[in-house]
């Protein structure tokens, strides 16, 4: 924290040196102030009132002004100011409404000189006149400002702000008679010290209290204000109406603002709550602080530049009971850490990327974006301004356009539209979705749906098997699936062949002890399968949908639709098989073998174990119907995670919704929420509002369902007076007319209101629908040809 660097700055007559250093105070500070020659600083707070000498290496306590056995509330300071002309003179504002002046030249221990108790409420601010020795100004919570002549016992003039509390008062540096006052209601007033009856000018600077203001030390027209609305604004007061010339948005309410000496555009701010840092802003670059001091552990309550002509030293006091001297060169520069890169996706997959020019040009040798995309580097330059000390960054913007054929989003949109997520029995939903996927040439997804149906369908509910199979294949679905495997082997690449063989071997193992019917029906099955070509891919694709091999065969899949429903028909058979005592062994064997099988192919086909499991799981219910659906949950979970990782979050979410309670508990809420939000985001980008709403509605994550409860306000204007209707949708507050009258029944519409965008007549949804069935003209009789679709 403490950097042992030394800096010596020559400043004509006086020279200041020092380093970043701090000292512990006994109590939180409320305000600090320095004396004119920058050698001493006074710290004031509720329980502290001390003067420290600024030495080169450290702060040295010089004087404790809080004397007396029973410190009174007069010592409880809200603000303190050291006179800039008279080095022995201090003034404090007390929380109980007292204004106290202190004379350091007094010989006694108690340096208190004058006590003014004219304010009824807490005094927020005191301010000495910059050139006049005896003039002191105070601003209080009671809404009054008072000007004191220190040679007199009481105030010489009182200024009424005609409003609640005064938060800050500041004499203008250049205009002898002018001072500015900021108020809790957001106003700033300018006063002439000679005219206590009325302010010269008033304007609203902020919404909510203006906590502070500061005149520019050099430019006579500039006033900086900071408010609870987190803004710092710089006003040009030379014109007739105060004009806002700069505005800096900070992250917390602004408690103090101080222009930086010798730097025209810089000002320092600290905040009242939450944020503990001190920022120095270049008002022309309002988005990122020029420098930051991050030493304090609690809110900074007072900042002051050590010397009025030296921009390198900043002093600060804080509620964490420390007093700091910050060296400007030790400040952190957020600009250096800022990331001048930006990346954004367009709706149609275009990608815009902005980065430092140096990075882009260094990349020139890089290959163009794969896929033959074009890139347009655009370079931006900002004219260097010699007075700006900001690092000059020029950045290049590149836009990558994705080519037409690489737009893969079509299937996503279609799938999203066509999938059914609820409203039908589970099995039907799966079938429907499988069909949708298949039509879109996504056989893997399609197969997954089918498998899910098999795995999770409750046997009791399976009274409605696939529509077109029973008669034909009767009791032999089992055989079908396996024989088709064997048939398919000839058509696949070597790696696959091996695996398929392995699997069929296992399959046959299962089957042999089984039913003799298998053989008798085998021919028939072969015929069926043969006619359907690559039946086997239904399973193969589950692993390999992006494999080139399959892309050419997609056209065949339409013919295979029947295949998907096959396993359902296995159920009549099940009871027979169930009796087979060897079933559990097979199951085990399956389990043992399958990783092996997939292991074989791992190198060749990049198969993941999940898929081999899913293959097996088809057969499992056939052999061991005792298996509860939960048995598959881990497998399905893996599968969903797999899909999500592949980027197909649509699948993950759709399955999640369709399976509902069957799988929900397997996947932790956070992951689910993450999937939901990604999918919903995707849908909304593609403007699929209906689908996204359906997904939100069907989701079970509380975080997601409550999305539907946000931003559900619909703003309507009165059809009569065209003004917004505040609370009710059907009667206007202003003209007291019922705004939405049904053109058919002439009653007020309080629920769903449908209206024609052409003639703006309308009414009850039902009435308008009925009307337009029989007539094509507007029911209001305006002659417009309305249309209801």
């Amino acid at each position, binding site marked *: 924290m403490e950097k042992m660097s030394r800096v010596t700055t020559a400043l004509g007559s006086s020279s200041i040196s020092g380093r970043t250093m701090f000292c512990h105070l006994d109590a939180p500070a409320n305000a600090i102030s320095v004396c004119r020659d920058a050698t001493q600083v006074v710290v004031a707070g*509720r329980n502290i009132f001390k003067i420290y000498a600024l030495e080169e290496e450290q702060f040295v306590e010089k004087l404790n002004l809080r004397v007396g056995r029973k410190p009174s509330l007069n010592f409880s300071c809200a603000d303190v100011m050291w006179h800039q002309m008279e080095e022995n003179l201090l003034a404090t504002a007390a929380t109980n409404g007292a204004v106290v002046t202190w004379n350091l030249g007094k010989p006694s221990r108690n340096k208190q000189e004058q006590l003014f108790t004219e304010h009824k409420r807490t005094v927020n601010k005191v301010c000495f006149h910059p050139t006049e020795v005896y003039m002191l100004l105070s601003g209080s919570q009671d809404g009054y400002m008072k000007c004191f002549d220190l040679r007199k016992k009481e105030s010489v003039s009182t200024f009424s702000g005609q409003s609640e509390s005064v938060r800050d008062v500041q004499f203008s540096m250049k205009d002898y008679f002018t001072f500015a006052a900021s108020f809790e209601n957001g106003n700033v007033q300018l006063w002439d010290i000679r005219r206590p009856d009325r302010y010269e000018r008033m304007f609203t600077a902020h919404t909510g209290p203006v906590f502070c203001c500061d005149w520019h030390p050099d430019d006579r027209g500039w006033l900086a204000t900071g408010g609870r609305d987190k803004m710092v604004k710089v006003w040009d007061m030379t014109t007739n109406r105060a004009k806002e010339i700069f505005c800096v948005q900070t992250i917390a309410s602004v408690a103090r603002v101080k222009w930086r000496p010798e730097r025209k555009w810089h000002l320092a701010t600290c905040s009242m709550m939450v944020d503990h840092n001190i920022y120095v802003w270049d008002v022309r670059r309002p988005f990122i602080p020029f420098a930051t001091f991050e030493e304090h552990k609690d809110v900074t309550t007072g900042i002051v530049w050590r010397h009025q002509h030296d921009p390198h030293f900043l002093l600060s006091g804080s509620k964490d009971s420390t007093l700091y001297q910050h060296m400007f060169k030790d400040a952190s520069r957020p600009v250096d850490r800022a990331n001048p890169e930006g990346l954004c996706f367009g709706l149609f997959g275009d990608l815009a990327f902005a980065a430092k020019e140096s990075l882009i040009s260094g990349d020139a040798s890089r290959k163009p974006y794969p896929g033959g995309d074009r890139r347009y580097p655009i370079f931006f330059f900002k004219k260097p301004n010699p007075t700006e000390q900001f690092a000059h960054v020029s950045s290049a913007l590149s836009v990558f356009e994705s080519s037409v054929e690489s737009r893969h989003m079509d299937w996503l949109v279609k799938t999203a539209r066509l999938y059914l997520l609820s409203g039908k029995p589970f099995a039907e939903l799966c079938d429907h979705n499988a069909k949708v996927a298949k039509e879109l040439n996504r056989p893997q997804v399609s197969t997954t749906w089918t498998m899910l149906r098999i795995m999770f369908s409750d046997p009791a509910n399976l009274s409605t098997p696939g529509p077109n199979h029973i008669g034909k294949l009767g009791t032999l679905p089992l055989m079908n699936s396996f024989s088709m495997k064997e048939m398919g082997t000839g058509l696949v690449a070597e790696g696959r062949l091996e695996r398929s063989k392995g699997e069929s071997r296992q399959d046959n193992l299962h089957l042999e002890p089984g039913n003799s019917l298998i053989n008798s029906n085998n021919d028939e099955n072969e015929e069926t399968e043969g006619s359907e070509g690559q039946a086997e891919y239904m399973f193969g694709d589950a692993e390999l949908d992006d494999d080139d091999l399959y892309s050419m065969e997609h056209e065949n899949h339409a013919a295979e639709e029947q295949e998907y429903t096959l396993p359902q028909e296995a159920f009549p058979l099940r009871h027979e098989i169930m009796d087979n005592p060897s079933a559990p062994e097979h199951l085990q064997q399956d389990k043992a073998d399958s990783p092996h099988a997939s292991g074989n192919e791992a190198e060749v086909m990049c198969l993941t174990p999940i898929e081999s499991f899913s293959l097996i799981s088809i057969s499992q219910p056939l052999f061991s119907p005792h298996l509860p659906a939960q048995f598959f949950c881990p497998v399905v979970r893996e599968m969903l995670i797999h899909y999500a990782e592949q980027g197909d979050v649509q699948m993950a979410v759709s399955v999640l919704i369709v399976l509902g309670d069957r799988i929900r508990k397997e996947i932790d809420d956070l992951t689910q929420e993450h999937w939901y939000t990604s999918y919903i985001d995707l849908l909304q980008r593609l403007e699929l509002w209906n689908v996204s709403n359906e997904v939100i509605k069907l989701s079970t994550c509380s975080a997601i369902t409550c999305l539907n409860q*946000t931003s559900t306000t619909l703003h309507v204007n009165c059809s009569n007076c065209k003004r917004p209707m505040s609370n009710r949708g059907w009667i206007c507050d202003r003209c007291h007319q019922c705004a939405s009258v049904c053109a058919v029944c002439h009653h007020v519409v309080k629920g769903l209101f449908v209206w024609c965008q052409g003639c703006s007549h309308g009414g009850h949804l039902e009435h308008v629908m009925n009307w337009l069935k029989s007539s094509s003209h507007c029911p209001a009789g305006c002659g417009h040809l309305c249309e209801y679709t």
Partner: protein
Amino acid sequence: MRHATAATETMGNNSIIVTDLKICTSCERLSKKDLGIRIPRPLGNGPSRFIPEKEIQVSKVDPRTQSIFEDAFAALGRLDNISLVMGFHPQYLENFLKTQHYLLQMDGPLSLHYRHYIGIMAAARHQCSYLVNLHVNDFVQVGGDPKWLNGLEGAPKKLQALGELNKILAHRPWLLTKAHIENLLKAEEHSWSLAELIHAVVLLTHYHSLASFTFGCGITPEIHSDGGHTFRPPSLSQYCVCDIANGNGVCSSLRMTSSEVSGEVEVLMERMKQLQECRDEEEASQEEMATRFEREKTESMLVATAEDDECVPSRDVSRHFEDPYGYKDFSRRGEHVPTFRVQDYSWEDHGYSLVNRLYPDVGQLLDDKFQMAYNLTYNTMATHKDVDTSMLRRAIWNYIHCMFGIRYDDYDYGEINQLLDRSFKVYIKTMVCSPEKTTKRMYESFWRQFQHSEKVHVNLLLMEARMQAELLYALRAITRYMT
């Protein structure tokens, strides 16, 4: 719906045996319609047990109030008795409804049923069956799980964790530390986010103070909720039941007439005038000021002790929410309350910023509401016009904050003693600390010459001051946690 089935007894303090009373015309009318259908009959006439019905009549309000009522009705589908009573002060009511609507219905970090449930928790803390019933309905309507209503144990862990905060805030907010906040925010899967916590805190304080208002004004149950109606045919006597419940009958004629209280307002005004004038002359020393504050603070702890003996009928709702910790343990007799200096943590500077940062717009809404309540004045006192009441309002506000240990450096607490007499203090203290003990007698015994609307005004002040005090403690704890 079985909540507060005991609420018929909750009519409580002026429960009168119904048997031999006469029927008034309106009751008669109701009973004549007997076609075998059981028609519910309101148990009390008018929205308040303390205020005669004729004072509050929807048909007689000015257009502005009328339109606010209409808005409220359109938004909620009901016009509750609280709004009707607040209708005395339409400007405030508007702010109040806007804030409440925002807290319960608009965008916010908590889901809707959570919001109502927190409302129930807070109201149950003060055994306010009126608010609990209102929100039990809403809670079920927005899809809340009725099992939760069996008590806090039925609710998710997350809400259970809030129980402690609820208890401390309601009774001893000064005990709140950053450790409490940390416990809520770092409870792994049951933890609250900061934004949710702020929302919850605002809701809790809102309903604690609203419970104060409900009891302070003797709000009667809504007709549709349990305890709001009866199917029993009214019976014969000189007065109808309903009249006795809210002083429509004899009681109102007895009020105001006693000559001994006639000078009350004048005395008060005289004192205010004196304070205004001599303020500059006698400056109390600092120590004197400090002792005055301490005196008020400790005294405020003792004021209500006389009423402690009164037995509080236990009600079904709150029984579900009560914990073995016990309610009585929280009676504050003789307890030392640490001093909270408002100059170090004020609503305007600190609280507002924190709330607005974490729950946008609510800071502004609350700020408007506080200011409205604090600054509301018609420059009247009882029958006197053009009176500057700011001093009186400030005394009430600061007295309530004083009870919470909140001190204003720039206030002379001696003023409170001058302006607020004992019966008034008893009322304030009861309403703020244990509102369920408020009785009609207390309501009537303070400020006997003042209008009912003025008493409602006082109630608004109490409510907002209490809310701000609780909020200040809660927000300070959160700020400390954050730094």
